[in-house]
């Protein structure tokens, strides 16, 4: 079975990209789909109704959704294998741009919208840096100059990244994403799958329920407004 993790900010067009991929690949592959979201999600029901594929979702609630994604990923692979799928598409909630939910033995797909502004690739650097392929949606809406600058900004973050520009509603340009999915090696050992990069330090006094504002009320990794340079940098 192959695994592709689709990440990207909210409303970037992740589901539109997934829908096009399923539409184009469903004749050749048995596809399973997992959506990770925070409080509500409808994509699994929509895709199951549209394509008749096994689809499910998981809500992270008060947990970081990428954290939730990591927790359930191994179960999800077992579920998809049980469904006799040969391709599992996992769609992230797309919240924290610092997280990069891609794993080894799978394809990392970052989806970003061309109308989100030319500096967006720089802002979501972590999510792009560890991806294999970036899908830029709504490409039909922006001027030629911005298309080119957007692409340069992505390359600034990750020069090796494969970039696909698409109007995901029409499915233009998707052939290169489909090729990347089909050429991605299959999972060889699900128990050996690991995240490609360490997520940000995630345990703090806010995580455990302290709600006071101001560093004076917290301990562990704290930061003041003045001189708030990086107090902690992961890898």
């Amino acid at each position, binding site marked *: 079975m192959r695994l592709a993790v689709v990440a990207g900010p909210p409303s970037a067009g992740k589901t539109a990209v997934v829908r096009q991929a399923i539409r184009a690949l469903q004749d050749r592959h048995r596809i399973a789909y997992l959506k990770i979201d925070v409080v509500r999600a409808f994509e699994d029901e929509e895709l199951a109704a549209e394509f008749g594929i096994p689809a499910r979702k998981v809500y992270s609630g008060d947990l970081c959704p990428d954290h939730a994604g990591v927790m359930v990923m191994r179960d999800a692979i077992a579920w998809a294998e049980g469904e006799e799928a040969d391709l599992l598409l996992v769609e992230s909630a797309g919240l924290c741009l610092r997280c990069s939910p891609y794993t080894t033995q799978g394809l990392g797909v970052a989806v970003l919208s061309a109308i989100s*502004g030319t500096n967006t690739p720089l802002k979501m650097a972590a999510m792009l840096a560890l991806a294999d392929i970036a899908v830029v949606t709504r490409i039909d809406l922006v001027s*030629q100059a911005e298309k080119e600058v957007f692409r340069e900004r992505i390359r600034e973050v990750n020069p090796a990244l494969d970039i696909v*520009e698409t109007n995901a509603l029409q499915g233009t*340009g998707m052939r290169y994403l489909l090729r990347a999915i089909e050429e991605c090696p299959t999972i060889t050992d699900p128990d050996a799958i690991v995240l490609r990069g360490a997520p940000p330090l995630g345990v703090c006094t806010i995580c455990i329920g302290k709600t006071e504002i101001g560093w004076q009320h917290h301990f562990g990794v704290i930061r003041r407004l003045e001189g708030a340079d990086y107090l902690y940098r992961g890898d």
Partner: protein
Amino acid sequence: MNPQPIHEIAVLPGRSRSGEPERFEEITIRPGDTISIVGPTGSGKSAFINDIEVFARNDTATGRTVLVNGAYPPEEFIRDPAHKPVALITQNTRCLADLTVAEFLAMHVRSRKIDDEGIVGRTIDLANEFTGEAIRPDARMTALSGGQTRSLLVADAVMVAAAPVLLLDEVENAGIFKERVIEVLRAGGKAVIFVTHDPLVSLLSARRIVMRDGAVERVIEPDGRENGALREALRLDGILRQMREEIRAGNLITEPVGA
């Protein structure tokens, strides 16, 4: 930038929405060509130019294939906007960045690594030939009207992107000088394909592709037979343009207008 000059783009037939094969052998597009795509809403006009834009390989809904110089084009033609020989401008295409006109063009010139100080000014001058509402270098892109934006993007495609093929999707409603656009593009050896409902644009084009049910139904080359209709369309367009200017200027039109 272009390793391989384009002397011909060929569109090979696909299927109609009901699965019937299209009845043309090949539609060939060469530098200087003007082609209009006509037909009712939903007949597949935009899909036709989208096929060209993505260099379809029997992998779009229409099943068409598009060749460049008789072969599948190199991947960078399709994938890298800086190498792409085709510029698509639609009613929806716009600049999102809150920049001035001069900054916007300079950004594009920089990303193309073009070393030519005068190019921004010349692009704005060309854009101003396409629109009656003057575009100033220090105007903000986000404050331009539809006609000004379209004019500037066409001028940018010609001057900065230097794309040999322009695909213009229903740009006539935006109030640009269509004849002038066609004249400049033809003189510059550009091929231009209009998706249009506008009689004047259709009559100004040397070829007309008629769409129906997702397929090309006919390709018409009037070859001078429509000259009478063209003259009439130009005259009417002149009258309407003058009326538009009078109305914009706040005048009452009580006298016969124009030619």
